[in-house]
């Protein structure tokens, strides 16, 4: 998530701006900058057609249920008549149920195993095995200093196209207490490993396209400068600010005597004429036992990996460095509680003024090995 300098607005000062659409008059108790921003928001709402007096979002949309399903569907529902709305909702439910049913069928039919990555932000050089598919859901709960706490969820599907090429798709949503929820966007990442065998240090190249809105709180990485006041802005405003981003990473990583040490340099470009922003992530972890026990077990040490991550922004092309950035330190723990599934846990601490002071992050991962061949054999 890139935190950029923008003027915060609250529902209160947006209401004030309604009586002064030009934003030129100074309103008591509201700074001119906030006032101007509120006026701009009002114009934006007019542009997208939600400015009619007394307009109310459908309750289900306000609570984020439909936004979490699919953005075009949600948009259609917003613009449709009540009768059509029920029909669309039913369609969306049927499609969600069939998707879940299909996934459950695959899960039941295929041997699977949980993954080994304990990190939430840092990438190491290990790719998805060829033809293996991985599903993960990663919820986080954040406790900002001066804003409402938020819940963010990230659904991930990753696939090993080749042993040197992994591709993943992410769908994200968030819910802010007292404000409601929103679908926050989609990301498509690709990782390429140029050298085939293990070296002293192993590089991986990462390319991602993200179509997200400003309400995104998935914290998949942190870049640029921080703006803590961004978290105070109402979610209804933020979700209307759509961003298309290109993100590049250089990943270097090494395994040594059971340890993994990894470092990422991150550069991100908002494609709408914004400067390149930078960030980094460092991580290390180790299995709690190096040799496996001969007996099946869930709680034995070999099933745990523990370590820590440090990540944060590095400014942008105009002001590179740690000044006014968000930085996070996070212990990480992975528990493979079944051959098929892993659980990750990370209490995350913001260590600068621009950071969210505390976040609790979780992740459940499920991987199906050789999925591609199984899919192909189903077709025969």
């Amino acid at each position: 998530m890139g935190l950029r300098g923008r003027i915060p607005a609250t529902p209160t000062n947006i209401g004030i701006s309604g009586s002064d659409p030009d934003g030129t008059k100074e309103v008591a108790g509201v700074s001119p900058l906030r006032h101007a921003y509120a006026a701009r928001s009002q114009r934006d709402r007019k542009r997208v057609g939600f400015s009619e007096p007394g307009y109310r979002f459908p309750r289900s949309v306000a609570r984020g249920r439909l936004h979490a399903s699919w953005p075009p569907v949600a948009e259609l529902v917003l613009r449709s008549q009540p009768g059509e709305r029920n029909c669309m909702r039913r369609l969306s439910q049927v499609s969600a149920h069939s998707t879940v049913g299909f996934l459950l069928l695959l899960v039941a039919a295929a041997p699977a195993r949980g993954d080994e990555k304990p990190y939430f932000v840092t990438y190491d050089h290990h790719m998805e095995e060829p033809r293996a598919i991985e599903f993960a859901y990663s919820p986080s709960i954040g406790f900002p200093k001066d804003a409402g706490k938020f819940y963010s969820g990230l659904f991930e599907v990753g696939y090993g196209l080749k042993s040197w090429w992994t591709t993943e798709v992410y769908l994200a949503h968030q819910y802010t207490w007292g404000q409601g929820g929103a679908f926050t966007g989609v990301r498509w990442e690709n990782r390429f490993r140029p050298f085939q065998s293990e070296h002293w240090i192993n590089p991986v190249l990462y390319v991602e396209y993200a179509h997200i809105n400003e309400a995104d709180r998935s914290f998949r990485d942190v870049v640029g400068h921080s703006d803590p006041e961004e978290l105070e802005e109402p979610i209804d405003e933020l979700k209307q600010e759509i961003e298309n981003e290109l993100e590049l990473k250089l990943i270097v990583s090494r395994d040594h005597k059971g340890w993994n040490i990894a470092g990422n340099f991150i550069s991100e470009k908002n494609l709408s004429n914004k400067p390149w922003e930078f960030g980094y992530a460092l991580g290390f972890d180790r299995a709690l036992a190096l040799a496996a026990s001969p007996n099946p077990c869930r709680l034995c040490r070999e099933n745990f990996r523990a370590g820590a991550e440090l990540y944060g922004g590095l400014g942008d092309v105009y002001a590179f460095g740690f000044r006014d950035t968000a930085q996070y330190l996070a212990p990480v723990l992975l528990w493979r509680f079944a051959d098929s599934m892993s659980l990750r846990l990370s209490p995350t601490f913001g260590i600068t003024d621009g950071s969210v002071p505390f976040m609790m992050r979780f992740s459940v991962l499920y991987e199906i090995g050789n999925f591609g061949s199984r899919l192909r054999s189903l077709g025969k």
Partner: protein
Amino acid sequence: MIMLRMPGLLPALVLALLLSPVSAQETPAGGPTDWKTPASAVELRNPYAGTENHGLAGKKLYQRYCSSCHGKDAGGAARIPALTSDKVRGANEGRLFWYVRNGNSRAGMPGWSRLPDQQIWQLVTFLQMVPEK
């Protein structure tokens, strides 16, 4: 906004990603005799050689990490080599260790360096104890 204006684009992308494995098969692995391992690999020694407990641990690891491709009984599949042949059972343990750890991306064999060396040696121990078929 591109995705919002073209509602079919995103599902199409996801579907293409899911179906791409059908055509994205790796070159079949040539089998253990084709390994190109450094000469120094031959000198590596298995600290667990012939130890039944470590062989059992290796079997557990095999079921967890390898069986989805090489089969539950290590018998292989259409394009994936069996590990029950004499070529594997009789292979130099150091070369076997090196190959499992580093893999061969051209042949579709992933490297398993994420596993501690001890667990890779347990896998090697198991592979050298697998009954021949």
